[in-house]
């Protein structure tokens, strides 16, 4: 099981954490990985400058709404 956590604190929210969450939800559905990936939210990871903050099994990534697909393909798929 891979755990992806997206920061939904104010700072990341304004930088587009909703779009990141939606993008990830779509990709997880597209690749049919609902049973293997757990998507969750948390408030503030303390790295607001690098938002949108995302962790994959506690490994930190900085993701933009436009870069969700690339992030998913490089950082997530290889771990599945």
């Amino acid at each position: 099981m891979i755990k992806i956590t997206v920061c939904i604190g104010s700072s990341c929210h304004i930088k587009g954490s909703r779009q990141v969450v939606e993008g990830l939800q779509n990709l997880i559905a597209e690749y049919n990985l609902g049973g293997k990936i757990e998507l969750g939210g948390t408030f503030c990871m303390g790295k607001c400058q690098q938002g949108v903050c995302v962790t994959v099994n506690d490994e930190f990534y900085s993701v933009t709404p436009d870069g969700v697909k690339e992030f998913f393909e490089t950082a997530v798929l290889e771990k599945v």
Partner: protein
Amino acid sequence: MRKFDTKVQHLKYKVLREVARLAWEDRLLENLMDVPKTIVPGNVPTTRCCVYKERAIVGERVKIAMGGDSHNPNIIEVIEIACDECPVGGYEVTNACRGCLANRCEDVCRFGAISFDSNHVAHIDKSKCKECGACAKVCPFTAIVSRKRPCQNACKIKAISMNEHKAAAIDNDKCIQCGACVYQCPFGAIMDKSFIVNAIDILKKSKNQDGSENYKVYAIVAPSISSQFSYAKLGQVVTGLKTLGFRDVIEAALGADMVALEEAKELSEKGLLTSSCCPAFVRYIKTAFPNLVEHISHNMSPMAVLAKYIKETTPGAKVIFIGPCTAKKAEAQLESVKPYVDTVLTFEELQALFDSRDLDLASLEEGVLDNASYFGRIFARSGGLTDAAAQAMKEQNIDFEIKPVVCDGIEACRMALLKLNKGVLDGNFIEGMACIGGCIGGAGCLTHGEKNKAEVDKYGREAFEKTIGDAVSLLK
């Protein structure tokens, strides 16, 4: 500039600030007894008969600032020695009575309580008077006045009486902790227990000795904050909170968004609902209208719903709610809410907390605060919850016509509940807020101004997310 409505609030604030200062420095127990003299220096009294009485009262305020009497379950406490034992005479004839011929007062009194002396001046027989006030209304010289204590006047549910020492006494079974008496007592003799020392303890222990993080502390702030701290920007208040040691600041309005969706569903299913956001209103129904309890929405308040989410997604986290409300302090002690909310502060207490660390908010960088939608944010003012519930119906395609009865102030709530009880309520949803104007009128607010509603609406419009669904979609 710090802003307070009254000198009473300012005095309360000074005590809280001093207690907080000592608590940060771990000197509270050691220097506790010095606080009264720090607050009341010199030997010229300014508020009471002598400095010794002033200091004794400050001593009582210190106790309440540190959590108050642990044997008293009520959040609201009377400081007996600060109570000025105001007149409780009820309706009295003043010397403005000119001894006229019309004698409308006598005519209108249904209890035969009015008589006249040899100068034709009216007198009220207290044994017959029922305090209806009819005589005062008809007197052409407004010579008849009601001498009622401000606290009793403020307490519309009649939980305040006089004890054997003539001091105010609160009936804990009736009291709903709305704090109206706290704000209205001109002598500051009624106070809400403060948990500012607990909050400081939580913040201090969140960091290990080496500066690393022991646990995360989150501040949930009520949307009415937009009408407070007007000397600084909201973003600066957020930075101030983070400087105090909070990991992040989250809008209670996001909890309100969550509640709005659920409450809309529940209303359409049950067909009749009373709101559950205001803890004082909920407690009022439970104590005064027990047979209406079934109509109370089963949703927890926005504070509790959001705190639950935080605790479930971030194990080990602590949550401190900051708002305008004294009743929230009692709500946080309910068994159903206790696991989620660690403690509650008011805006008054937050101001003291900032100043105990000498934080100059206006000079700080601006942080961001944006979690909720417009609709979650306007919960802070009367009518907002209803607007949000209607919007939530629309967003969820629920076909149900809301007929809201919007009540602010416990008296308006009482009228609606009486009608509901009699089956003559013209509506299917009671939005009940114990404070006039809604939460922006809360007893724990620093200021209670005319413009506060406009401030809340403005803050609402600035929300990044425009719909409730979008704001809440993040949480899934």
